[in-house]
């Protein structure tokens, strides 16, 4: 059921086949590069947009899909950019830098999420010692979403059948009642899940699937992409 929310798009491409860990390395390098890249001169940012274009091509991500998914970010950064036209030079440059960096990072993140399943990403991050606990928590949340989505769908159907043309007041009351009921049911269910976990052998440590080593070629591509991004941003900033 989590597939209804996931941003992943099933497709046959080089980026889809690439190891998640290599993609994470590439993304981290790209994000750092986007954060340190100056917007004056413009070539470092243009280079990063070019590298992003490479990602779109190798991931076979439709540009329109990416545009739709980054629309919210564009609106979020577009307003300050528009307002800054009437401000001073400082405000204009600040809004411009904010817009460029936000769009670069958001688009890169969307390319990653479009070409990688969330569960694979969580599995990969769970292998990093620092992120193991947080990744386990995230996996519990994903399972919780599956459980609660069933409840939400049933509640919504009942709601739609009983009050198809509800006014705002009824909607508010309905949402409040459904939310309270969901909280109560979630709490009661968590007790049963916890007891089931212990019965199945949970002893405080979470089990982990055996690690498979990433292909060297994939890692090399991920590192090369990260280094290229950082080099473009670094040269632009410190020369």
């Amino acid at each position, binding site marked *: 059921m*989590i597939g209804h929310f996931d941003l992943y798009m099933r497709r046959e491409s080089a980026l889809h086949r690439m190891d998640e860990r290599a993609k994470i390395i590439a993304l981290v390098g790209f994000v750092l590069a986007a954060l340190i890249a100056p917007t004056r001169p413009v070539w470092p940012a243009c280079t990063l947009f070019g590298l992003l274009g490479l990602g779109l091509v190798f991931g076979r991500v439709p540009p329109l899909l990416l545009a739709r998914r980054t629309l919210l970010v564009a609106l979020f950064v577009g307003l*300050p950019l528009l307002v800054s036209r009437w401000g001073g030079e400082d405000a204009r440059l600040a809004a411009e830098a904010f817009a460029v960096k936000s769009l670069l990072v958001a688009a890169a993140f969307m390319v990653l999420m479009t070409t990688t399943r969330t569960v694979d990403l969580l599995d990969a991050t769970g292998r990093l010692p620092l992120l193991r606990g947080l990744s386990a928590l995230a996996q519990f949340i994903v399972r919780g979403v599956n459980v609660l989505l069933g409840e939400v769908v049933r509640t919504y159907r009942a709601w739609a059948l009983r009050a198809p043309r509800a006014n705002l007041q009824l909607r508010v009351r309905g949402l409040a009642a459904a939310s*309270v009921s969901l909280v109560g049911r979630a709490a009661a269910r968590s007790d049963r899940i916890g007891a089931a976990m212990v019965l199945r052998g949970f002893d405080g440590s979470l089990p982990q699937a055996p690690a498979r080593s990433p292909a060297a070629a994939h890692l090399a591509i991920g590192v090369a992409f990260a280094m290229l991004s950082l080099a473009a941003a670094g040269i632009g900033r410190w020369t």
Partner: protein
Amino acid sequence: MVARKRGKDALWQARELSLAGLLGALGLLLPVGFHALGWGGKIFLPMHLPIVAAGFVLGPATAAGLGLVVPLLSLALTGMPPLPLAPLMSVELMVKAGVASLLYRVLRLPIWIALPVALVADWVVLALAVLLAAGFLNIKAGALAYVAAVIVAGLPGTALQLAAVPAAVAAIERRLPRLALKRGKQ
């Protein structure tokens, strides 16, 4: 005796993890519901509701971890909140849930003290995080104005938290009396 205590700890941990997972799932689903109804997420702060409630029923480390993870996971699954906001919200919710848990479950302060203090801690940390991010990105203008705008826009959401969170916590403690008992023992 030791094995029995270890078994009890494992059960407690398993229940805490599963409760955290389900409250985190609510933190992902409530904003989707609000957006589906066309109600502004920035105004009513729907993601904050279950996470703050989690702060009152989970231990500080789990609650803070949940606050850190949920906005990032929501970004990964639904693309919302948009990227410049998600890391800020992560820091905000981590502190809010962590402070609430620390005050309520560890220091055993009443909820009507712990909740407002957690809300104020959230605003302070938001201001610091925005200033830090603005400094890092070399953006010199508008950081504090942004923080003020976020706080003012989110006042209806803050009021909703003040009204709904104590009710939700009471409902959870009624369903799971062990939480209230554990708090009494600490």
